[in-house]
């Protein structure tokens, strides 16, 4: 059996990659993909912890959490894409650096 620490290291790495993409990438759609990556890291963490919490079986609670959080993630991303489409119509670009008019 693979030790739990490997799973946690993997999900933390995935989460940090998502955070890195979110901070460094300039494309609006890539930023949304980074958000989705972070959500998947969390789901992986939930599932991994659930199967190690009780030895020999899987704790059912985390499955419920994971399914619901996938649903919530879908809602956020759908809304985010709607806003991205409107942003593209207003600004004519997907470069997030162009969305800086409010600062002035």
């Amino acid at each position, binding site marked *: 059996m693979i030790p739990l620490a490997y799973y946690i290291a993997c999900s933390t790495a995935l*989460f940090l990659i*998502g*955070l890195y993409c*979110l901070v460094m990438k300039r494309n*609006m759609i890539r*930023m949304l993909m980074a*958000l989705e990556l*972070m*959500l998947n*890291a*969390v789901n992986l*963490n*939930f599932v991994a*912890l*659930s199967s190690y*919490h*009780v030895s020999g079986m899987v*704790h*059912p*609670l*985390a499955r*419920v*959490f994971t399914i*619901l*959080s996938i649903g*919530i993630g879908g*809602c*956020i991303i759908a*809304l*985010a894409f709607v*806003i*991205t489409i*409107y*942003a593209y119509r*207003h*600004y004519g670009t997907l470069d*997030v650096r162009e*969305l800086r*008019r*409010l600062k002035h």
Partner: protein
Amino acid sequence: MFTPILDAMILLTVMTPVMGLISRKSKKVKVVKAYAMLAVIFALMLIPLYYDGVLTGDVILVVHGSSPPIGVSIAVDTFSIFMASISLIIGAVTIAFPVAEIEGGNITGYYTIMLAITSAMIGIVFSGDLFTLFIFWETMCISSYTLVAFRKERWEAIEASYKYLIMSATGSMILLFALSFLYGLAGTLNIAYLSTSLAEGVENPWMSIALLMLIVGFGLQAGMAPFHTWLPDAHMAAPSPVSAILSGVMVKTGIYGFIRVLMLIFASMYGSWHITLAAFAVLTMFIGNFMALLQDDIKRLLAFSTITNIGYILLGVSIGSYRAVAGSLFHVLNHAVLKALLFLCAGAFIYRGRTRSLMELAGIRRTMPITGTVFIIGTIALIGLPPLNFFWSELMIVTAALEAGLPYLSLLMILNVMLSSVYCLRLIQAIALREPTSISRRAKEAPVMMLIPILTLGLLCVLIGAYPVPFQAFAEAAAKVALDPKTYIEAVIPP
């Protein structure tokens, strides 16, 4: 299904599009608005009917499916009712305020989402386990992204909403990651069970990581300092009643999360979060105050003032004593009333003047005497002068810091209260004393439908200031329950 008030709100929210259809068929736009207002007032009236016991310290527990460590649960105590009453009162007033900015737009959609955000906030404060809290949290966040982007034909709404969405969704993901670690440590997300099983885990490094992530996650929604940048943009771009509900109650759900999680689950780690949170609070105050000095946009200025006040509230939470938390909760109530009032007044100015710039709105009190006067009273309250409501809660936080032996914190807070009077005086000077510009000369008094919510909130403001005892007692009862995990745990875990 859950508990009467939450059931009623969810059902009434789902029914709103039907009413919208009726109002469209009968060509009466007012129907759906009247319906939304009645829905919130109905939910508000359910509080004394069903939660009499809760007001005196009981806890109502509603369980679904299997019993608490596994199943979903709703737990209502005095603290929850305190926050829910604030959400409902501010919700009712902001729904009553006419949204001139979206005239001819999707009115039904607007009221549906306003009801959805109000019911989601009630769901957050009523949930007994952290995952239910998270689901309602996301419902609230998604509703507020939509409300900020509601005037989708304007670039500023879309830009603010995108910025807000990215920041807030990241915060939610960090929160969920922290929840997954808490789940791994305890095998449940029920708040009472987490509280008992993690009470000894002070030495565990995962606890510290989860704590830090929870502070970031809740702090992002509350507008805490390094993560506050979404707040002024979102408040500025949203229609005025939406700014009022965002600033009045939505950022306070972050405070609710802080108090609930820190006092129940991480109470044994007080030493590790107390200084961190105090540092964040002081930073928040200073950033809010200094940025507010530089603004010309009236709504942006008020948004930065919201950040400052979040700093005061967080300072009270970070002190963690009974009087400090009571002061914080009292300030939550006062700030909700006052900031909703100021944003609604600003909405009336913008409706008549068609501009948000303070330079162009100068002297508008002469042509809009009632709104202008109420706005001035609100600004005086914001300075913290004695006969008005802010004075009492700020005094409570400052004296609590002294009592707790942290005089430097109360000194920093007094310094910030003085700093904030600078931009308040600037607001008064601009609105009342300066020579009217051509825009403010052309303005007329706001319509009656706008004046009713403004005057209601203004009266409430003066009432709390003149007779603070019952409101203060309610906040103190809520703080007592929030700080005493024993009753909460006993209600959820059968002995």
